[in-house]
């Protein structure tokens, strides 16, 4: 009888579920793709339903259900923080108590009732251990230093582990409220973006600025000789205020915050903005550049400490901060490790995978299995079902024998296409299964896709996808970043002589968040790139997630059709069908 383990992360943001059969990931799904609510935090009921039905089992077949953090320890932290920051915390306290005493505290009984699993089969894994496990056990490395950096779990905000075989030994930790993740999120909020959503926009904005506020942001963070750090809490209120993360002292230090949704018109593209508006935008970009530079150097410090303390050749990263692809590039290029591996769902969603793998290896004592190698671990729509849906929706479609060749021809002809093939990607990046694709050879493509297809901010860059065979000819990829670039988790410089050939995917600083595609993991997407290369001499396409602003990525054929109709896409390739826009 196979052993089934269901890992769950939920109730903060990005809830997800992962199913293991005998230690092998058979499916991984984020609830937002099913509920259509971006960053959905509710218990992943729909995702679990899909995982169980796809595996052909029911809840009674589950040997263990494991939740990715320990709610009682988290509750203890919230109580202790409220007491320590009283009376300032009195505004947040009633809210938190309502939420915790209402449902979060009683999670064991909620999990049993919701998923139909007996209480003795329900386990809880510490938040940072889930992160560390998601990075180490899913990696190909038998020995590694493991670093988890995020906002906060129970108490820990940054943890270092020694991973060896099936064991994860804790080495060091930084505890709440001192948190690199919360520092970056506070800057994110100061720059007018939503916390847990806009951090990657700060990363994109940073390229338009210079780190002119470096001295100021350095006042926010102090390092000690042992490799730990502490925030200057005079500037932060995230630990006691219900909605604000920075204090007035932060505004005095960095200047007035940016209003959410305010136009961003830096010196690089001022448009019709007044000189004052340009100056303000440039200041925001400089603040973003300063915070980004600080984060990169903070990660380099932590990585240097990890090397000194653990001494392995490989480093595994997880936690929301590990999604900072610019920092990952610097870790790969300037850090002391020969190999870097980053969990593709490095944020809280990945905790579901880590918790499940922890049960299999650490609790049940089973040996390591194959590393995670494919991105398409989510829902697949069977071809017959896709045809049925398209027919029901009255779509004008045709069957294409070779979607890769047909799509490559359309892309070469300047079409912007939706590309839905196989299973959903695991993690926040579209890796050629739920993607919007376009020809990268024209500079106008970027503005067209931003403004007419995805309806998002013009300053945001697009990523290139390239065949792994051609990657080095076009991009300067650090050796240690070979694995992260497979998952679009590290940036690379576009070779200077090639930049003019692919202007739509080159960021303002000459970098790109490249994805290398190999035929083993994504055969159809690899062939599309090869076909496009044969037609144009450029084996690269612009690849961005198939979603509209404020929505999660599409999952099934119906989602794809809904987004297709509401966007400026020219064509949709979905599960072997080519769909045209209605005239």
């Amino acid at each position, binding site marked *: 009888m196979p052993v089934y383990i269901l890992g769950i992360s939920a109730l903060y943001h990005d809830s997800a579920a992962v199913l293991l059969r005998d230690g092998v990931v058979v499916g991984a799904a984020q609830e937002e793709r099913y509920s259509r609510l971006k960053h959905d935090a509710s218990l992943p*009921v729909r995702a*679990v*339903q899909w995982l169980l039905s796809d595996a052909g089992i*029911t*809840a*009674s077949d589950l040997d263990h259900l494991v939740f990715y953090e320990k709610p*009682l*320890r988290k*509750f*203890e932290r919230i*109580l*202790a923080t*409220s*007491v320590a920051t*009283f*009376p*300032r915390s*009195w505004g947040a*306290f*009633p809210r938190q*108590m309502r939420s915790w005493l209402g449902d979060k*505290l*009683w*999670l*064991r*009984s909620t999990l*049993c*009732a*919701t*998923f*139909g*699993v*007996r*209480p003795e089969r329900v386990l809880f894994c510490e938040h940072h251990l889930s992160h560390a496990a998601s990075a180490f056990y899913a990696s190909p490395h038998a020995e590694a230093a493991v670093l988890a950096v995020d906002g906060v779990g129970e108490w820990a905000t940054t943890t270092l582990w020694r991973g060896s075989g099936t064991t994860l030994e804790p080495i060091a930790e930084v505890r709440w409220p001192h948190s690199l993740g919360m520092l970056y999120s506070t800057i994110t909020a100061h720059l007018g973006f939503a916390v847990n959503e806009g951090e990657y926009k700060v990363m994109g904005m940073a390229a338009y600025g210079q780190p002119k506020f470096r001295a100021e942001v350095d006042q926010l963070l102090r390092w000690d000789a042992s490799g730990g750090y502490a925030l200057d809490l005079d500037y932060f209120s995230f630990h006691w205020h219900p909605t604000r993360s920075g204090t007035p002292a932060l505004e005095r230090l960095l200047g007035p915050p940016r209003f959410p949704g305010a136009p961003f018109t830096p010196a690089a593209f001022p448009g019709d903005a007044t000189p004052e508006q340009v100056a303000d935008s440039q200041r925001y970009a400089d603040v973003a550049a300063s915070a980004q530079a600080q984060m990169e150097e903070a990660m380099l410090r932590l990585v240097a400490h990890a090397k000194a303390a653990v001494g392995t050749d490989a480093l595994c990263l997880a936690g929301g901060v590990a999604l900072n692809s610019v920092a990952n590039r610097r870790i790969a290029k300037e850090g002391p490790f020969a190999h870097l591996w980053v969990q593709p769902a490095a944020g809280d969603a990945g905790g579901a995978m880590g918790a499940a793998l922890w049960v299999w290896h650490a609790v049940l004592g089973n040996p390591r299995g194959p590393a995670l190698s494919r991105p398409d671990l989510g829902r697949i729509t069977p071809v017959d079902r896709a045809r049925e849906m398209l027919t029901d929706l009255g779509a004008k479609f045709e069957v294409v024998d070779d979607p890769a060749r047909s799509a490559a021809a359309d892309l070469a002809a300047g079409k912007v296409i939706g590309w839905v093939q196989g299973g959903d990607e695991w993690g926040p990046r579209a890796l050629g299964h739920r993607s919007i694709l376009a020809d990268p050879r024209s500079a106008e493509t970027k503005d067209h896709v931003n403004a007419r297809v995805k309806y998002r901010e013009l300053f945001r860059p697009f990523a290139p996808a390239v065949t792994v065979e051609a990657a080095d000819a076009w991009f300067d990829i650090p050796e240690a970043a070979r694995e992260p670039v497979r998952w679009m988790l590290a940036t690379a410089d576009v070779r200077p002589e090639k930049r003019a050939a692919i202007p739509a995917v080159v960021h303002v600083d000459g970098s790109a968040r490249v994805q290398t595609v190999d035929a083993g993991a994504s055969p159809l997407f690899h062939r599309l790139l090869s076909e496009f290369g044969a037609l144009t001499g450029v084996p690269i396409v612009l690849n961005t997630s198939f979603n509209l602003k404020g929505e999660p990525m599409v999952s099934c054929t119906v989602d794809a059709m809904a987004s297709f109709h509401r966007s400026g896409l020219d064509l949709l390739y979905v599960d072997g069908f080519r769909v045209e826009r209605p005239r």
Partner: protein
Amino acid sequence: MSTQDPASYEPTRVEAWLLRLGTAGALLAMLSRGGRWWMLPLTLLFLIAGVGLLFLQSIHYVAPFIYMVF
């Protein structure tokens, strides 16, 4: 969800309450093990003070002073 699977576990009302009691016990045990018994009276005090502040804030001539204090 569990209703779709007749073999799956569905706690009775009594079982659900017992699970909650178990959770409360586990919380007390955790605070005890961690030497955090001191948090219980403080938390109670906190709750009472919070209710008091909410009450005082509702009195319009006292509210500005409460705002100034915090």
